[in-house]
């Protein structure tokens, strides 16, 4: 029974990792840029939901669409101000730019809101559900369900709408896409907006049960890179499954050793995967 519980817990965390990883994969797939600041976007969204809850009494789950909209705009602005100039730059410059953003936003949050942990406390989803001996933590379950819905919506958008297909065409080959009349600059901006919006939703969903600190995003984005690598860089479907695997590995690793080691297994998994299958489970090349 305890193993079934580990499995369930892993899946629940995994769905959240899946959502975080899909956002990362979106930018990587379209622009070939590794965004180290992805977790900090999540942290900012969490603070946004916290202040909406404190200031206006808005339920964090209800503010998820607001977080998505605000973060979409944030992503587009970052693209316009910074990311578009990184397109032709070297890989080193790209990585430093996004790592600089990571430091900047972490320090900004520290500066504005201090390092003290903030919590949203109880809301309607608080509670422990016992289903046939398996325990489900209310807020985490709601978050996992929300992550799944958002992931499905993203899949639908990418595969069933014209804009989504244009985005995929740009990811495939920007030059050909631009010859076909697709405005690739707008597609890049859209990718940044969508990526930030998905992580915004993830932040809103996580804000109900995680302590909000300036460093809260770091423990999500780096493992999500592993999920993206496992799935194959640039594959959104791969990132989704990679996220599930990360959730399972992290939970099982923490259960069998000690919770402080749980991420160790995730990082080691990256090395194993890239050495055995350098292009991931669903990578194209």
């Amino acid at each position, binding site marked *: 029974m305890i193993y079934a519980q580990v499995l369930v817990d892993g899946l629940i965390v995994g769905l959240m990792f899946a959502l975080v990883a899909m956002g990362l994969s979106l930018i990587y797939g379209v622009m070939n840029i590794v965004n180290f600041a992805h977790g900090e976007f999540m942290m900012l969204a969490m603070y946004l939901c916290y202040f909406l809850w404190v200031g206006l009494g808005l339920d964090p789950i209800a503010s998820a669409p607001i977080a998505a909209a605000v973060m979409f705009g944030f992503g587009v602005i970052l693209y316009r101000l910074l990311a578009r100039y990184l397109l032709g730059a070297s890989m080193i410059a790209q990585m*430093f730019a996004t790592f600089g953003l990571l430091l*900047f936003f972490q320090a900004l949050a520290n500066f504005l809101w201090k390092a003290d942990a903030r919590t949203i406390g109880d809301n309607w989803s608080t509670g422990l559900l016992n289903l046939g001996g398996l325990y489900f933590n209310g807020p985490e379950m709601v978050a996992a369900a929300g992550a799944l819905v958002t992931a499905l919506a993203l899949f639908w958008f990418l595969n069933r709408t014209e804009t989504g297909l244009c985005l995929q065409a740009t990811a495939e080959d920007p030059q050909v896409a631009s010859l076909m009349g697709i405005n690739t600059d707008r597609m890049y901006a859209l990718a940044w907006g969508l990526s930030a919006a998905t992580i915004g939703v993830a932040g809103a969903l996580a804000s109900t049960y995680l302590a909000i600190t300036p460093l809260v995003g770091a423990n999500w984005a780096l493992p999500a890179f*592993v999920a993206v690598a496992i799935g194959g860089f640039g594959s959104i479907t791969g990132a989704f499954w990679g996220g599930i695997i990360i959730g399972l590995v992290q939970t099982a690793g923490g259960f069998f050793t*000690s919770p402080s080691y749980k991420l160790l297994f995730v990082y080691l998994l990256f090395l194993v995967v890239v050495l055995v299958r350098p292009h991931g489970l669903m990578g194209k090349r």
Partner: protein
Amino acid sequence: MKWLPVAFLVALAVYPLVFTQPFPQHVVIMALLFAALGTAWNILGGLAGQVSFGHALYFGVGAYTTAWFYKAFGLSALVTWPVALAISTLAAVAVGLPTFRLRGHYFVLASVFIMQAVYIVVSNWGALGAAIGLELPVHRPTGALDALWHLQFHLSKLPFYYGALALFVATLAAFEWIRRSRLGLLFVALREEEDAARSLGVDTMRHKLLALIVSAAFTTLCGMFYAQYVLYVEPVSTTSLTISVEIAFIAIFGGVGLLWGPTLGAFVIIPLTELLRAYLSGHIGLGLSGTRGSGIMATLNYLAAGGGGQVDILLYGLLIVLIARFQPRGVLGFFRKLD
């Protein structure tokens, strides 16, 4: 321009005799340490073209080996350095063998994740003091020889200053010597056209490993110096991703692969962050602290008192973003274009 490096080295040698206060000496000691770290990184990243975000691993090997042997057995770094270099070489081979088969983003990310894994292990390792770290016992030297054995000098920073200068010059010399040797040409061939180098019979794996081992060795020596200077070693300031990126950024700031690039980076960034940190924490006043008037300094004072701190990291992060955005080839790369 040939006289400029010589003038710089002479100025460095004279500097502590002119500026005798501890703080100005400390700032340059840290700048020299990071210039050496950046130059060591540059052997692998600049010459051989392998961008590592994991060099704090070797820095940590040096720092922890020094601290642990001194604390447990009272052994001086003067005799434990071969052990540190042996561990560093083993670590370099263990990291290099699997990851040098990867390219581009995969290699960089692998270095990031190895760094994170090491960080988790070190910050949970009881013998190394876990997250709290190790303190090197303070020793009161009975004489000059005794002080030298313990490498503890409490009356003056001069021994550390000239130690850092020697470390810096040695690393710089090693970089230049490799760059001019046949080995350096092979490294550059790896960087520019790996496949072509391979097709001409260059053993790419062996040469990448060699570049990493040399680069790691100097990084380890810097770690040993750091432990002896600070007398306190803990994971965040030694084996973290942030330190790794700082080392790489200092090398890249000045211009990757250039002899004086990391030095320029270190002598701009380290004084900037050290001064800002000291100023914001109120250790130095600049004659403006305490004023509640208007102006940038007063605003900064106010924010430093009321805000949550970390303004130095805030500006540091912004600087990285701006350099990457406007001057991706580094500052010396910019000057080169003007020539």
